[in-house]
Structure formats: structure tokens, C-alpha cells
């Protein structure tokens, strides 16, 4: 019998409940087991899907207005589901480096967030999708607020800004869905994507969606919440945010925004793409000057997702495929990078690059891992990052060569600031401070990430078969 995708959601919820009920000592383990079970189920689901079984779940929920709990699996959803379910155990395992107080609450929130994110990727009813989208926001807000770093006042301001920012954007998306409902009488994706909109309507709906997704991704100039939030969140929160949550925005462009409001006027579309490209260059320039490794990674992440967003907005097949590939690549890369930063922070108790240096001679394994993930981040051929970035740039050049030229600078700038960071943080003369070699746990996490990045870099067909 074929499995059903609803199973994943149920297991996450049950796992969250079990984690909350457990004590602080076992919470992490229960969360890890839950996420591992789901990773396995996701792989089985993938096999079922490729065999052509129906693994979707559809059930009428509310008759008036017409809303149904529909979780439908297709290539795009499945890829995102795999990204979520496979990254989550890595993220949880990576978080064992830090001892969190009230760990049961923390991991329950993490699993609940995973539930909401998986729901977002699977839902094909606009309203259910919206509900999952919002539900994902609450746990990360509390994770950042209660377990974050820095003074309470600063942290509170940062997290509230983040929350209001993202919530504000998504309310406009809700209004857009409500409007679409009045037009079509349905929230279902199949009906909405067929809705015939005039250019004027499409413009407004496109912009409403853009507010929601542009903030989440984030696209310049809606990015101001990002670096602060990444910096103040605990590492596990940062990983969830950058690894999975911002993919919700990118995924939604491909799933909802372009199919529904594809009729948008050319000028708006161009403006949005140009904004994405400005964001790439802008974030790269700031990353160049960042002295805090977490902030540097936040801006580097913003540059990368800017490229993905630009590719997604191009709207052709190459852009679509490139965006999906790069989303997966970026998910693994960014989690790896933040984990590396977290390891350094554990040893040196600092995120400032100037406090680091001389790691290579003391920890060669660590340096190797760092280098591989770094290469994947800057898109060196042979790593998975290269394939995504190349496809995206190709998609941009299909539309307009200038886009590709400007977006391409991000690769050069990216290589520059990442290598400079590597040089200052890892190389250099031996430091007086001791930097111990990676532990087994860290070895496993970094090993998995590197295997994925290189493996898919050499044989990307494994993944691309799902959606091409």
C-alpha cells in the first residue's frame, strides 16, 4: 500500500507533543528520532511517487467558504519536502553542540515549525497553505525570542520587528487570496491557477504576493529584518530560517505567484527582477565589509537567494529548474556554513572574524570540511552549488543578457568575500588559543552535508529526475 503524505505532518505533530511532554534531557533525542523517521518516510514517499502511486491527501474541510485540506504531491512539492525532512535531522544533530535550557520546549517548537513548513510545501489549497505559512512563523519567533543571544531588550526589538515585518507581508497575501476567492469561488490551486485575470488585477495580486514573498526571501529593499534576526537567533533558529524557512518564499513564487499572476505587466516583472539583482550586488558588498561571521553569512545567503528569486521570476523552464536545484543546494550549504560558524563560536566564544585565525594547523579536518562547503557556496564546478548557479545565470541570460552579467558579479564577489573570510578566520599564523579538532558528532553532520553537496554535484540527475 502506498503511503500518504499526511503521515509526515502527523508524525511531526505527535513528535512535537512527545517532545514537549518529555524532560529536558531526552527532548533532543526524541526530536532527532522523529525527524529521522520522517526522513525515511519522505524517501519511501519519493519511491512511491516515482512508481506512480497516488500519495496525496484531499478532504473537504469547510463548505462555505469552500476550503479543503488538500495536500498534493508533485515534483516541486516533493523536492521541498525532501529538503525539509532531510535537513531537519541534520539541524537537530547540529544543535546538540549547544546546551539549551528548557530543551523540551525548544525542540517541540522546532518540530512544530517543521510541521508547518512541510504543510506549506504540500498544501494545494490557498487557505490551508496560508495557515501553514503563518503557523511556521510563531515557533521561530519564540525560538529567537527565548533562546536567542544578546540582551533581552535588543533581542526583543529584533524579533518583534521580524515578526511584524513578515506578518504584515503575509496579510497582503491573504487579501490577495480573498480577492481570488471572490473571483473563482475556490481556494484550490488547480482553480486559482486557471483563473483569468486582467493585467490590472494580475498586477495588484502580483504585488500583494510579492510583499509576502519579498519579505520572507528577502529581496532588496525588504531585507532589513534579516541580518539582525539571523545574528540574534540561536544557531538552530538561524539554520531553520535560512535553510528551510526562506525557501518557503522562493517555493511560493514558483507555486503560487507565477502561475496565478503570470499575466502581470512586463514593467512590474522587470522591476522585481532588477530589485532581486540589486539585492545580490548590495548584499555581496555588505558581506565584503562584515566583521561578524554570522552577519557575513546572512548577507551572503541574501545574495544567493536573490539570484534564485531572480531566476524564479524569469518564468521560463530553465529558471524554474535552476531555482529548485539551487534551493536545495543553498539549503545544505547555508546550514553547513552556519554550523561551521557555530563550531568556531563554541571554541573561541566569538563570532568576530578578527578573533579567529590559525585554525588550519590545529584542525586540518575541520579546515577540509570548511573548504568543501565554502566551494559549494561559491559555486565551484563539481559541487552542487555550481549546477544551480549556472542554470540560473543561463536562465537570466535567456531573458536579457545584462541581467546575467550583473547577477554574475555575485559569483566573483562571493568568491572574494568568502575566500577572504576563510583566509582570515581559518588560515594565518597559529593562534595562541587552542582549537580542538571536530568531534564525532560534528564529523557526522559535516560529513553528510559534504557528501550531499559533492554527490549531487557529480550526479545531479538523482534529484532533477523528480521535477524535470
Amino acid at each position, binding site marked *: 500500500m502506498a503511503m500518504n503524505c499526511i503521515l509526515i505532518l502527523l508524525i511531526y505533530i505527535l513528535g512535537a507533543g512527545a517532545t514537549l511532554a518529555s524532560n529536558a534531557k531526552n527532548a533532543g533525542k526524541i526530536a532527532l528520532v522523529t525527524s529521522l523517521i520522517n526522513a525515511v518516510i519522505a524517501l519511501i514517499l519519493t519511491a512511491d511517487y516515482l512508481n506512480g502511486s497516488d500519495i496525496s491527501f484531499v478532504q473537504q474541510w469547510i463548505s462555505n467558504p469552500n476550503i479543503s485540506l488538500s495536500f498534493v504531491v508533485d515534483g516541486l512539492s516533493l523536492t521541498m519536502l525532501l529538503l525539509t525532512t532531510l535537513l531537519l535531522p541534520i539541524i537537530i544533530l547540529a544543535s546538540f553542540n549547544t546546551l539549551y535550557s528548557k530543551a523540551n520546549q525548544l525542540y517541540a517548537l522546532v518540530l512544530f515549525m517543521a510541521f508547518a513548513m512541510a504543510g506549506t510545501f504540500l498544501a494545494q489549497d490557498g487557505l490551508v497553505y496560508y495557515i501553514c505559512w503563518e503557523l511556521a512563523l510563531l515557533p521561530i519567533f519564540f525560538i529567537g525570542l527565548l533562546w536567542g543571544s544578546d540582551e533581552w531588550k535588543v533581542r526583543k526589538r529584533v524579533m518583534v520587528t521580524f515578526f*511584524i515585518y513578515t506578518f*504584515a507581508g503575509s496579510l497582503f497575501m491573504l*487579501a490577495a487570496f480573498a480577492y481570488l476567492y471572490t473571483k473563482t469561488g475556490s481556494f484550490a490551486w488547480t482553480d486559482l491557477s486557471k483563473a483569468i485575470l486582467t493585467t490590472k488585477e494580475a498586477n495588484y495580486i502580483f504585488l500583494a504576493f510579492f510583499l509576502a514573498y519579498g519579505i520572507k526571501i528577502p529581496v532588496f529593499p525588504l531585507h532589513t529584518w534579516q541580518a539582525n534576526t539571523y545574528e540574534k537567533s540561536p544557531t538552530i533558529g538561524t539554520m531553520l530560517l535560512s535553510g528551510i524557512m526562506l525557501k518557503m518564499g522562493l517555493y511560493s513564487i514558483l507555486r503560487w505567484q507565477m502561475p496565478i499572476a503570470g499575466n502581470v505587466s512586463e514593467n512590474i516583472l522587470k522591476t522585481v527582477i532588477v530589485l532581486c539583482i540589486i539585492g545580490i550586488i548590495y548584499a555581496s558588498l555588505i558581506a565584503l565589509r562584515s566583521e561578524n561571521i554570522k552577519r557575513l553569512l546572512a548577507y551572503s545567503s541574501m545574495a544567493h537567494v536573490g539570484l534564485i528569486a531572480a531566476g524564479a521570476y524569469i518564468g521560463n523552464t530553465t529558471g524554474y529548474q535552476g531555482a529548485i536545484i539551487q534551493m536545495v543546494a543553498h539549503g545544505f550549504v547555508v546550514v553547513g556554513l552556519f554550523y561551521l560558524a557555530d563550531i568556531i563560536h563554541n571554541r573561541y566564544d566569538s563570532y568576530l572574524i578578527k578573533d579567529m585565525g590559525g585554525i588550519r594547523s590545529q584542525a586540518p579536518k575541520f579546515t577540509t570540511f570548511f573548504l568543501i562547503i565554502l566551494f559549494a557556496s561559491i559555486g565551484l564546478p563539481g559541487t552542487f552549488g555550481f549546477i544551480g548557479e549556472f542554470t540560473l545565470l543561463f536562465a537570466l541570460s535567456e531573458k536579457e543578457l545584462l541581467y546575467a552579467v550583473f547577477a554574475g558579479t555575485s559569483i566573483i564577489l562571493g568568491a572574494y568575500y568568502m575566500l577572504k573570510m576563510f583566509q582570515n578566520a581559518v588560515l594565518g599564523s597559529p593562534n595562541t588559543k587552542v582549537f580542538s579538532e571536530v568531534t564525532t558528532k560534528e564529523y557526522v553532520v559535516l560529513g553528510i552535508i559534504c557528501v550531499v553537496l559533492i554527490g549531487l554535484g557529480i550526479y545531479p540527475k538523482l534529484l532533477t529526475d523528480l521535477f524535470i
Partner: protein
Amino acid sequence: MSTLIALASLAVLILVLEIINLRKTIVPLTLIGLLVALGFNICDFNTIDSFYNNMIVVNKTTTQFSSLFIVLTFFIVALGQSFYKEQYDKISDYTSLKIFLLIGAYCMVAFGNMVMFFLGLEILSITLYILAGSDRTNIKSNEAGMKYFLMGSFASGFILFGIALIYGATASFDLDQIQLASSQLAMPKWFIVGFVLLLVGLLFKIAAFPFHFWAPDVYQGSPLLTTTTMSTLAKVAAVAAFYKLSLVFFPAMPANFSNLIAFLIIVTLIVGNVMALKQNNIKRLMAYSGISHAGFMLMAILLGKQAEPHLFYYMVAYAIAGIAAFSVILYVCQDKKEELVIHFRGFAKHKPVLAVTLSLALLSMAGIPILAGFFGKLFLFTQALNQGYYVMVVIAVITSIISIYYYFKVIIVMFTYKNADATTTYQKNFIYSTVAIIAIVINLIIGFCPSLIIDLF
């Protein structure tokens, strides 16, 4: 009708119980009585009937709204058992006053005649004046009672004058007659003036712009349980009456009348939400939040008969969330002189379940998905977009974003551990916590299955 008789006898019974020295049984018996009345009310669900020359009209709408009122009163009376324990010798007065208040609320939805409407309104208002001033030794409560009484009587005056002018125009107090006359005959100018005067009074009662100024002061000064009553039962009762009148009078108004209402809604939303941002007293905060919700409910009224299920849903969601929130506020502020937001600091550490309850109640009011308040807003937005009120919806969306800030302020304060006062202890209180949890569970249920309510229509 049997509901009304049952309620009236219940109110008298309470006073009799005091006389025959059965004070301890008052609250439990009242609760049972309310359940019985609710049963009577539900039996009327599918009947359409009128009594005393069309003074009282019973139909589906009436029974639905009044069932909500009875449920709210049930909670409020239950909370009273604990709230009035220091002046338990007056419990019969307080409880019977609340039942009279419910009778007023019932008349305000079941009237078929303007006289009955006014009677209901006055019964409701006078009991509220008394309750607002019921903490006799507290100067603030005196102030609140006086303020509310003075301004409320002015509003009643306006309403009475409005009714008189409408009578002058249509020669009838009967709602059906008025509707018939206004739709078929040319109405004199003072018909419109009459309704506008009525509108002034109604806007005062639901605390909407520009007659909302009393709300924060009165909410703050009144005893906490009275504030609860005002912001839940009294508010939804006034909204229900407004809705019922709007069905008769809105069609008879000039064409651009809806613009006026839309304007009032927009300003109410803005004023309520913006003013709430800076409040550090939780009662004032809830008052302004209540003003903004009045704006939302007015929106449903503007949308007319089609939005009736959505109005009712919004009322249920708002009132139930209000009961849950106020029960927790009662719990926290049991022996505090003032109800400041700071008092909630670190509350989550002491009582995590109740802190989560209050958070959920506030999130429901803010309109976060899966809680009932979200669907309330969603239904309204969909309906409003359907009828072409785009600007109003955009403003409503923006003010909802603003509202997040002050609701979250309270939530964050509760989850602040660092500066929490470790010595603070919270008295255990079974009733407050039970009511809070039951109310929030109801909220979650109707949030998860909105059909339960919507399909009643």
C-alpha cells in the same frame, strides 16, 4: 419567548434565595437556570413566532444571537463566584443584576418594536451603570460609574429622540410597519435625521468612532468583572441590535450613506489600533482593542444580510476570546490595585498553561490562523471584497498588522523570565483557570471547524 420568561423568573428566584438564606446555592442554581434557559432557547431554533402584538419576535437569528448571550452570561456568572468572594453578602444582587442584563440583551435582539428595543437597551445600560460603580469604596469605580451613566444617558436620549422622529415620519413603532412605510412612501427629511440620531446612540453603545471616548476610562475604572461584561456581552448585544436595525433602516437611507459608515469603520479601526499601542494598563489596552473590533463588526453590519453568518461568527470568536483573556487577567490581577501590563511579567514561568491560554486568546483577536478570530476576519474580508470595498479591506489589513504589536507586547511580557520578580506568587484560583481553558477550547474548536457556526444559517 419561553427563554425570556425563564430568565425573568430566574432573576427573581435569585433574590428570593437570598431572602430565604440560601446564599451558597445562588451561583450554582443560576448556572443551572441559565442552562435551562439555553435549552428553552435552542428548542425555539426553528420556530418563527411573535408575541404581544409583535413586541417580541422569535426566529432563527434571534435564537442564535441570544444563545451566545446566554453562554457568555454563564461564564460571567461563574467568574463572579470567585470575583465577589470578599463581598459575598451581595452575591445575590450581583448575580441577579447580570441576569437582568441578559434580559436586556435578549430584548435587544428579539424586539419587533422600537419601544421594546429601547426597553431592552435601558435594562442593559442601567444594570451596567450599577455594575460599573459597584466597587463603592474605590474612587475610580465611582468615577467610571458616573461617567458611564452621564454619557450613556445622553446616548439614550439621542436614541429616544431618534425613535420619536421616526415615529413622526412613519406613524409606527413597529419594525415591520416602519420597513413597509419607508420602502413604499416618500419619507420626510426627519426620518433620516431620526435614524442618524439613533445611529449616534448605537455608535456610543458599541464604542465606535467618534463616540468611543468613554470606553477606555470606564473600562479602566470599573471592577474587572464588569469590564469583562462590558467588553464581551454588552458589546455583542449592542452590535446585534445595531445589525437588526440596520436591516430595516440602511435600505431607506440616501445612496451615499454607506460611504459614511465605511468612513466611520476606517477611522474606528485606525483609532482603536493606534491608540492601543501606547497603553500600559491592560484594561485600557483591551478597551482600545475592543474599539477596533467594533470597527470590524460594523464592517459586517455594513455588508448587510449576506454577512449575517460572518457577523455572528465574528461575534462568537471575539466574545469567547474576550472571556478567555479576561479570565486570565482576573487570575493575574486578583490582589493587585491596578491592572498593569507589567504585572504579567514572568507569568509564563509560574502558570504556563494560563499564559498560553491568554496568548492564544490574544492571537485569536489579532487574527492568527487556526484560531477563530482569523476566520472571522477572513470571512469579513472575502465578503467585503465581494461587494467592492477595496480601500476598507486594505485599511483593515494594515490596522490588523498594527494590532499585532500591542497583542504581542502582552505576550512577550508574559514570557519574560529574566526580569521577573521571583517572589511574586499567584493565588490559585480554580474557577478563573477553568473558565479560561474552557473558553479557549471553544475558540479552538470553532476555529478548526468554522462550519459548526456558519452552517447554522
